[in-house]
C-alpha cells in the first residue's frame, strides 16, 4: 500500500520551478529554506514576502487557470522559465490560504501579450490595472442596470489629444483627478453615458472625456464583427503608443488593444 503523498508525488516530480501564488510570509519561509535546485518564484499582486524572484500579478484573477497562465507568461517574459519547463504551482482556489498544487508546462503558445500589456506599456502598470478595474466593474453592473460601452485610451496622451477632437465641453478640464482615486470610479461611470473616448495620461491623470478619435483606420486588423468603438480603439493604438481598453456594449466583454492588435479579452462576469 502506497500512501497518498507518495502517489501524489508525480505532480511535483522533476519540476524545474515552483510558483507560489500570493503566499503568506510563513508559508514562503518554509519554501525558502528548502535547499533544492528548483527555482522559487513568487507570483502575486505585490511582493509582500520580499522574495528575490517575483512576478507581479496586475489583476486579481478569480479563475485559477488564468492566474497560472498569467504567472507563467510573466515568468517567461522575465526569463525565469523557458519553453518546455515544468512548473509546479501552489495556488489558493477555495480559501485565502494555499490549498491547491498543480503541474503546468510553460510553452510559447501561452504567450498572448497579456503580460507585455502591463509590463511594457507606456503608461504605468498600476494605471492600466486601475482602468481595467473600472472597465470590469462597469461591465458587471452597467449604468443603472443597462449595459454600457466605454473606451479608455491610456498613455501617450499628448499624441492622442492631437489625433482626436472634442465632441463637447471636456468635463475634466482643469481638474486633477487620477484613475484609482476613490471618487473617480463613480465619475467615470457617470460620464460613460457620454459618447466618445476617455483619454488618460501615462501617470493616470484623466485628461479628457468626450473625445472623438480620428486616426486613420487603414490596415487595422481586428476580428470581424466588432463595432466602430473597437475599430477606433485599434486604430488609435496603431498610430500612437497608447493602450486602448474597450468595454463592449453588445457582448459586455472587456478588450485591450495595443499596437493596433487585440491583445486581451476578458469577461467581466468572471472577476
Amino acid at each position, binding site marked *: 500500500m502506497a500512501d497518498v503523498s507518495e502517489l501524489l508525488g508525480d505532480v511535483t516530480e522533476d519540476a524545474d520551478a515552483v510558483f507560489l501564488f500570493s503566499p503568506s510570509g510563513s508559508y514562503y519561509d518554509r519554501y525558502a529554506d528548502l535547499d533544492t535546485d528548483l527555482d522559487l518564484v513568487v507570483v502575486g499582486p505585490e511582493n509582500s514576502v520580499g522574495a528575490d524572484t517575483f512576478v507581479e500579478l496586475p489583476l486579481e484573477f478569480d479563475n485559477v487557470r488564468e492566474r497560472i497562465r498569467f504567472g507563467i507568461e510573466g515568468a517567461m517574459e522575465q526569463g525565469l522559465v523557458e519553453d518546455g519547463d515544468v512548473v509546479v504551482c501552489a495556488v489558493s482556489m477555495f480559501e485565502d490560504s494555499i490549498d491547491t498544487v498543480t503541474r503546468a508546462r510553460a510553452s510559447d503558445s501561452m504567450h498572448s501579450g497579456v503580460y507585455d500589456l502591463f509590463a511594457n506599456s507606456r503608461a504605468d502598470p498600476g494605471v492600466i490595472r486601475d482602468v481595467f478595474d473600472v472597465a470590469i466593474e462597469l461591465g458587471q453592473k452597467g449604468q443603472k442596470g443597462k449595459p454600457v460601452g466605454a473606451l479608455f485610451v491610456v498613455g*501617450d*496622451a*499628448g*499624441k*492622442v*489629444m*492631437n489625433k482626436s477632437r472634442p465632441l463637447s465641453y471636456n468635463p475634466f478640464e*482643469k481638474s*486633477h483627478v487620477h484613475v484609482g482615486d476613490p471618487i473617480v470610479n463613480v465619475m467615470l461611470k457617470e460620464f460613460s453615458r457620454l459618447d466618445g473616448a476617455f483619454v488618460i*495620461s*501615462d*501617470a493616470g*491623470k484623466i*485628461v479628457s472625456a468626450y473625445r472623438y478619435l480620428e486616426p486613420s483606420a487603414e490596415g487595422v486588423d481586428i476580428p470581424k464583427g466588432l463595432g466602430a468603438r473597437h475599430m477606433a480603439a485599434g486604430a488609435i493604438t496603431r498610430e500612437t503608443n497608447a493602450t486602448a481598453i474597450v468595454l463592449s456594449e453588445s457582448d459586455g466583454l472587456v478588450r485591450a488593444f495595443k499596437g493596433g492588435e487585440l491583445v486581451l479579452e476578458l469577461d467581466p462576469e468572471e472577476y
Partner: protein
Amino acid sequence: MRLLQVDFSVLLRDQFQFILALLILVVGGVAGHVIGRLNRRLLTAAGVPEAVERTPFERTAQSLGTDTVSLVSRLSSWFIYGVVVLIALNVAELLNARLFWNGVLTFIPDLFIAILVFIVGFVVADKAELVVGERLRSVKLPEVGVIPRLVKYTIVYLAALVALGQLGVAVLALLILLGAYAFAIILFGAVALRDLLRSSAAGVYLLLNQPYGIGDEVRVGEDRGIVQEVDVFVTRIENDGEEYIIPNSRVFEQGVVRIRN
C-alpha cells in the same frame, strides 16, 4: 485643604479628624479607581490601542505583562492615590513638617505630567518611526533606514526636553543643542531642496492655472514638442521619440511659447 481644616476643626473633636481622614482615603481611593477605569475607556474609545500597535514601546509593555493604555490609566490612578494619601495625612495632622509636604504636593503634579509627556513622547516617536518607515519602504535603498530613526530620536529628544523642563531641571545646554540641530536641518533643507522647492512652487501655479495642458505643442527654451504630462515638479515634453523632462522652475525662468497653427 487648609480651608477644610479651619471649617471642620471647630466642629469636630480630635477623634473625628481620623475618621475624616479615613473617609477621604476611601472616597479618594474610589475616585482614583473610577478615573483610572474612565481613562482606560476614553483611551480605548479614542483608538489609542490601534494607534500604538506594533510600536516597540507597546511591545516592551506587553512583554512586562501590561500595555500602553493600562499603563497610562494606572498612572492617573496612582497620581490620585498619592494626592489623596497626602491630603488624608494632612487632615489627620499626623505630619508636622508642613513645609516639606507642601513642596512634595506641588512637585507630584509636575512629576505626573513629566512621566505622561515622556510616555506619550515615546509612543509617538515609535509610531512616527513606523509610519515614516512604511512610507519609505518602496525606496529600495539601505541608507534610507536612517531617516525613520532620525525622526524617532528627534521626537524622543523633544519629549525628554519638555519632561525635564517640567521638573525644573536645567535644560539650557540641551536647548542650545536643539537650536543647532534645527538650524542644521533648515540650512540643509534650504540648500539641498532649493531646486525642488522652486520647481514645486512653479508647479502649483502651472497646475492651478494650466497655461498649457496635455496635448498642446509648446517650446521651452530650445525644447519643442507636445506636452505629455505636467506634475508638481516637472513638465514632460515629447518630440519625435525624444522626451524632455523639464523642471517647472525652468518653465518659469525661460517662459513658454505655445505654438498654434
